[in-house]
């Protein structure tokens, strides 16, 4: 009887110490996680990015190129050969997350680039690209891109021309 009492007492003490140790362990993990999340949020909030967006109309079968685009004609030809190019609009702004740069393309379309994360865990900038037509969203996508590098979104317009949207962040 006394033996079983002693055993159960010993078991109780060990169980209590295990529970206490686990509690401490969980508390330490929570503290580490909270401090990391806070550091990440603070660094992300403080970092601004220069976000640039350009909208270009590309019409097949014609050779005319907007004079403002003459300097980049050869590169545009790589994207869409045998097209004529016309600048619809361009905007650039230094923004913090979650601000956005909007560009009116003067044909009923507006493109908005929202800064989601100025620097993610893989060293990329996270941007959300949204295309609106008369305030109705037509397209939305999240892009994780290296800084100082352009990427493009392309959409066919009802008149058969292509809408080319170039986006980059520094």
């Amino acid at each position, binding site marked *: 009887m006394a033996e079983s009492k002693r*055993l159960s007492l*010993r*078991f109780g003490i*060990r*169980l209590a110490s*295990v529970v206490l*140790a*686990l509690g401490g*362990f*969980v508390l330490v*993990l929570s503290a580490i996680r909270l401090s990391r999340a806070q550091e990440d949020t603070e660094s992300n909030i403080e970092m601004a990015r*220069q976000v*640039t*967006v*350009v909208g270009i109309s590309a019409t097949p079968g014609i050779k005319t190129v907007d004079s*403002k685009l003459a*300097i*980049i004609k050869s*590169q545009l030809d*790589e*994207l869409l050969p045998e097209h004529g190019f016309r*600048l619809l609009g*361009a*905007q*650039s702004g230094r923004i913090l997350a979650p601000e956005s740069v909007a560009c009116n393309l003067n044909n009923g379309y507006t493109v908005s680039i929202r800064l989601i994360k100025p620097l993610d865990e893989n060293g*990329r900038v*996270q941007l*959300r*690209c949204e*295309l609106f037509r008369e305030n109705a969203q*037509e*397209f*939305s*996508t*999240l*892009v*994780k*891109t*290296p800084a*100082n*590098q*352009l*990427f*493009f*979104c*392309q*959409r*066919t317009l009802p008149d058969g021309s292509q809408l080319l949207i*170039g986006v*980059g962040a520094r």
Partner: protein
Amino acid sequence: VIGLFGLAQAAAVLLALGLAWYGFRPSRQAQSTHLVSTQPTPSSSQGYAAPLLKVTIPSDGFPTVVEEGRLVVIHADSQPQKILVPIFSCSTAFLMQVEGRVPTVVDLTPDATAFGVDDWYLVFNAVESLANPVVVMKE
């Protein structure tokens, strides 16, 4: 014996905590999908009914990850698609129906021999100057 039992219990609890801590975080957000419903399909003539798992891709689609030095074009014309995928495991089988928009991503990076990253860096500069025109000289 009781000590070993206690240690085993602690290990099991730690394992469960670890799984709870790390297991529910998706390894790649790019593949996160929104589960809508699961429903059984009508029984076939043999009396076998495979459950149907419906998965809807969010309207935002999948994130696009651009690699360093790649020239990427995201086509925004994609129409909603529906794909049926049979899934077999050792004890069960079910059908997964995935539907939603997935933007088409095209890599137009030219061959390494001809590709100059600086070309597109210069394009970036040119585009920035289009957005912020500067008056060079004024009378």
